[in-house]
């Protein structure tokens, strides 16, 4: 259910907001010790803008969306109707805000399906991290699954962390 739900959410948001085609790629589902495929680890070494939004209620969790920096800039330009040089003038804040909103929409779509399945919950406010080799470790009692997607020549990663008792 989580895989189908996150795949639909990522695909819908990027299709509607960026008019982009998304193809699901590698998946690493599992518990706290789940292996991260080496190619994902290698990819995440490059600069990324990472958005995260949580959901709290009858079900609790957190979704991280890793967007390669060039993709994040391209997506921001598309959303705001800017050229790359206009985006440079607008500043880095425009990129982080846009990634926050893409993550918010994605996790909102993911969470709404959970609500309709009988697990009412609310979204938290988005937060953003930028940098290279960002890795998210599961805390105790949390399961982490990684889903990757191909979009416009870039690989995006969605990390879904859910409490084990969910």
């Amino acid at each position, binding site marked *: 259910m989580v895989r189908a739900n996150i795949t639909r959410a990522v695909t819908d948001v990027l299709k509607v907001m960026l008019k982009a085609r998304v193809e699901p790629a590698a998946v690493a589902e599992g518990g706290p010790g789940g292996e991260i495929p080496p190619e994902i680890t290698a990819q995440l070494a490059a600069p990324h803008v990472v958005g995260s939004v949580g959901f709290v209620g009858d079900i609790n969790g957190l979704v991280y969306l890793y967007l390669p920096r060039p993709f994040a800039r391209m997506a*921001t330009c598309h959303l705001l109707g800017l050229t790359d040089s206009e985006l440079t003038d607008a500043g880095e804040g425009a990129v982080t805000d846009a990634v926050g909103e893409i993550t*918010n929409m994605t996790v909102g779509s993911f*969470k*709404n399906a959970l*609500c309709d399945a009988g697990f*009412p919950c609310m979204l938290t*406010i988005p937060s953003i991290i930028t940098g290279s080799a960002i890795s998210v470790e599961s805390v105790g009692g949390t399961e982490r699954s990684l889903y990757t997607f191909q979009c416009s020549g870039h690989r995006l990663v969605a990390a879904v962390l859910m409490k084990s008792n969910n």
Partner: protein
Amino acid sequence: MPKKILTVDDSKTVRAIVRKTFKSFDCDILEAGDGVEGLSVAAKTMPDLILLDITMPLMDGVEMLAKLKSSPQLKAIPVLMLTAEGGKENILKIAKMGIRDYIVKPFKEEVLTEKVSRIIELKPSSEGAVKIRSLTDAAAILVVDDKPAIVQQIRNGLKHTPWVIHDFGTQAAALDFLGKSACDLIIISLSLPEESAFTLFRMIRSNPKTKYTPIFGLLVKTDTAPMQHAQTVGFTTLVTKPIDMLELESKVAKAMNLDVSARYFSSEGETLVLHVPESCTPAALTEISTYLKPKLADGVDCGNNHAIIDVRQVKALDMGVIKLLLAAMQTCRDLGVQYVVVGNPQIIAESKGFEETRSWVFLDSMDAAKAKFAAPVGV
């Protein structure tokens, strides 16, 4: 007066998308980053509509909505929720609080304009209307016809204009184009299969972006049923085949509200010249009459105290032309403008046959007219 839309969202990106979405409409976009600021801006500006997010810091959208609805001053402002918070339960709960509509993110810009236009009237931006467009300004015309020969006739007939013709053979292709591009006028063949001309017309009219775009229907004169149907549903005008290109050009200019005075009036030094065209159709005579007084008055204002009424191109002196020339002469006299009439032998001869024109004095060339004005007063 422009409509005021207040977008309350903690995401600058969403607020920028809202600004971008309504850029082409005559409305002011006001912004607030949370519920507290949203209430304050709403109280100060009394917007016509509020687009409200739910998940925000300080005060979320649900709390702001509750405060809004409990305020006698603000409760009548319609609210459209624009939020990532969906789920049937959530939507039902918020709907009971008195919202007008609900959009779950992600959203398409056209869905937003469509839902907003159901609540407030959206008109195209008046930015373009400030500058009156003329015959020399570029414009985009969409022709929807599955007959390449007709499209080619229109292209050839309008090729001397700065108007760009885009043509598509199907309703779907035309709608796809309109979704991506702006268009100043649309010509639709009423003989498209399965009445798709009328379906297309309805879809164009239901889109706030194209609601006021002039739409011409193209048909054969004997197609009375579609002609009546088109007139009933509100096509701007109908153009019959075979197409009279002069008539089409005139209708296009009129529908786009273009200043066509350059066709008939020019300025040479201190002299204003009125060129009466060869083809004095009723439409052309009306156009000239419309511009006559303002153009002569503008000329006087700019120091042009002479006018030449040039009828050399006119083939016959009928009542329409006579009335126009009488009006032109009278306007010159009223404004204190010295005028001469330049004619051709045919017109000069015909003028002797009418009571109203018998006394007219014609010059036979533009040079003679200019020389007359150049001569000292009294010569």
